[in-house]
């Protein structure tokens, strides 16, 4: 046989055969790759069809304009015939504000609306560290949101002007010195507290001064007595400030320079306002506490370690509901008589602890996943414990834990509905019950749940997408 071969003419590229192209190829590979897969595909399609066929009329016959459930049903019967089903969204149209604000007075709605807008301003430097373009988009979006919603909520002119000026100023700042925006993030909690609960402006300012005091004590004591004792001294000083000086000092200042918003009692809070207040505060505080607990659990110091382990295991071992009941009953016994601890604050503290215990374990997993060499290299370069943790260990450990951390956050946010059990008006059970107690809407079942569920889904899905974006952004290992 002749083994010689040489090509005289090069082959032109051809399109792949039809079975290897586009939709046909995709279906063959994904839906009908084997007899079993084909059967499953058909069964799946049948199930989807059955679901849609059963619920579609209900969606299509939706009623948006009605005064009561009875009227809704009459309209459905009239347009779609006797026996037809139809959703009654008219209820949402009439009661949406309770789902969002609970019993927060309507003429003050601009306060939670503004607080929500500013929340995202405060988050901007955290979510998009140093990315001016993303921050500009976010802040621009917030400005538009505020202008529209604040107008709709009939905000007092002075507050409106101040709010818009603040957001525009911060937008400008984010483009010039994005890092400085973190200062706004730092004061946001006090600002938000004041906006939502009202009262004298001096209370949050004096409370913030407690943190300044903590920092100053730490700063000046650290070189003399060392980092840990100095931190302890700072905390003691701040706590003393809050316990004994907070009231008198803010009273004094209010006397001299009275300025404040109408005080709103906690029992008027409800719906998503309540869920978001508890959820966001819980998320913001549970992460640092969780990190400290995870580090404490790995500590060489026996007491720190035992306390961390004990706390984590106890809090994780008890249902959240139990902790919430504790919040509403037991704390009252333990705290010195006369301290009237706000119920929302108590719930926030326990929800935070609950999430922190879970986060501590999640982060411990991330810490364990780091090779020993990272600790050794940090040590060998002369980084002290806290610097090594902050610059080397935690960035990596937190990065690998992002999916689990965000899961915990999502869980925490959804668990805020459990506050219904201690008599707070969560959007799912609390508000829905109130709506159903109205004779007009008695018997309405699916609509409030679907509405509340949809809002929860949007928020949680947003968190999940953000975590995926973050993971991708932080991916540097190039494996």
């Amino acid at each position, binding site marked *: 046989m002749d083994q010689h071969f040489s090509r005289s003419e090069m082959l032109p590229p051809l399109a792949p055969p039809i079975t290897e192209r586009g939709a046909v190829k995709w279906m063959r590979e994904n839906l009908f790759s084997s007899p079993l897969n084909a059967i499953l595909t058909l069964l799946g399609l049948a199930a989807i069809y059955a679901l849609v066929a059963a619920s579609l009329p209900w969606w299509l016959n939706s009623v948006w304009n009605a005064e009561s459930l009875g009227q809704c049903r009459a309209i459905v019967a009239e347009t779609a015939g006797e026996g037809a089903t139809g959703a009654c969204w008219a209820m949402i149209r009439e009661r949406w504000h309770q789902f969002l604000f609970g019993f927060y007075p309507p003429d003050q709605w601009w306060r939670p609306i503004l607080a929500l807008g500013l929340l995202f301003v405060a988050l901007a430097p955290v979510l998009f560290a140093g990315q001016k373009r993303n921050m500009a988009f976010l802040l621009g979006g917030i400005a538009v949101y505020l202008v529209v919603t604040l107008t709709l909520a009939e905000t007092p002119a002075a507050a409106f002007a101040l709010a818009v000026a603040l957001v525009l100023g911060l937008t400008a700042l984010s483009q010039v010195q994005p890092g400085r925006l973190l200062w706004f993030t730092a004061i946001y909690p006090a600002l938000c507290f004041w906006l939502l609960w009202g009262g004298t402006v001096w209370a949050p300012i004096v409370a913030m001064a407690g943190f300044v005091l903590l920092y100053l004590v730490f700063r000046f004591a650290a070189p003399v007595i060392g980092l840990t004792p100095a931190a302890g001294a700072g905390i003691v000083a701040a706590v003393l400030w809050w316990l004994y000086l907070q009231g008198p000092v803010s009273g004094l200042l209010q006397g001299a320079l009275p300025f404040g918003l109408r005080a709103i009692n906690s029992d008027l809070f409800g719906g998503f306002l309540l869920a978001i207040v508890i959820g966001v505060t819980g998320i913001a505080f549970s992460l640092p506490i969780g990190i400290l607990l995870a580090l404490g659990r790995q500590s060489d110091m026996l007491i720190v370690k035992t306390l961390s382990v004990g706390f984590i295991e106890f809090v994780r071992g008890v249902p959240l509901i139990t902790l919430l009941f504790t919040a509403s009953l037991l704390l009252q016994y333990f705290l010195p008589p006369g301290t009237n601890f706000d119920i929302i604050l108590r719930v926030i503290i326990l929800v935070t602890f609950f999430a922190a215990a879970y986060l501590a374990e999640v982060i411990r997993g991330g810490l364990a996943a780091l090779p020993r*060499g990272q600790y*050794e*290299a940090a040590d*060998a370069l002369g980084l002290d414990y806290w610097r090594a943790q902050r610059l*080397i260990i935690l960035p990596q450990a937190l990065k690998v834990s992002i999916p689990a951390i965000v899961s915990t956050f999502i869980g925490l946010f959804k668990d805020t509905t459990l506050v219904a059990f201690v008599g707070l008006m969560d959007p799912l059970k609390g508000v829905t019950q109130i709506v159903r107690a109205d004779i007009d809407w008695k018997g309405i079942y699916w609509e409030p749940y679907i509405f509340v569920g949809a809002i929860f889904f949007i928020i949680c899905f947003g968190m999940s997408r953000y975590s995926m974006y973050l993971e991708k952004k*932080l991916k540097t290992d190039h494996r």
Partner: protein
Amino acid sequence: MAEAAKMQVSDEVAIQITGMNKWYGQFHVLRDINMTVMRGERIVICGPSGSGKSTLIRCINRLEEHQQGQIIVDGTELTNDLKNIDKVRSEVGMVFQHFNLFPHLTILENLTLAPIWVRKVPKKEAEETAMYFLSKVKIPEQAHKYPGQLSGGQQQRVAIARSLCMKPRIMLFDEPTSALDPEMIKEVLDTMIQLAQEGMTMLCVTHEMGFAQAVANRVIFMDQGQIVEQNAPKEFFSNPQSERTKLFLSQILGH
């Protein structure tokens, strides 16, 4: 070998270890270690696996704690005092077998991190120093990549540069080439040889006997946690005294 002789060794003591013992639980891993390292000395430590070489050099920057005896580095004794430990660690650079670069930071950030946070050098100056040492290890163009994008040999050179950015007076190497493919070993050894020629005090655990002959002025042989033999490289290789050394040399040079 002729070069080794040219290099200066001063009469100033860099590291002084006397009567040092260390245990892991019940296991007596380092036994009565005595050694003195002069400034500018280049010492190669070799010995069979598990003989305590890594443990010994890790005691010098207190990655491991010793239980008995004295270790004095640059005039500072290693005790439980954290201040002393930090001081020694900032004077002593260490290069690991598995590089241990920080994967979440760029090469440049890896190099500037410790100078900025430990030495409090301004960022700009730290970056200039970092670029200088990156050029020195011949990879300035990789400054903005992440460690995962570099070859093993490049990563190890970055690790050496990272230590050098702290301007250490002593460098420790723990088998810096044994995780590398043969073609990359040379680039790392060249960097180390250059460093030796500049007079750096070096303690190097390695089985690269060519390197030992080229730059070391002393070879230390360890077995079972003890220093069994030490000598100038020429004599060490040509005329080993102890039976264990002879056996070890025949094993690693035999084939």
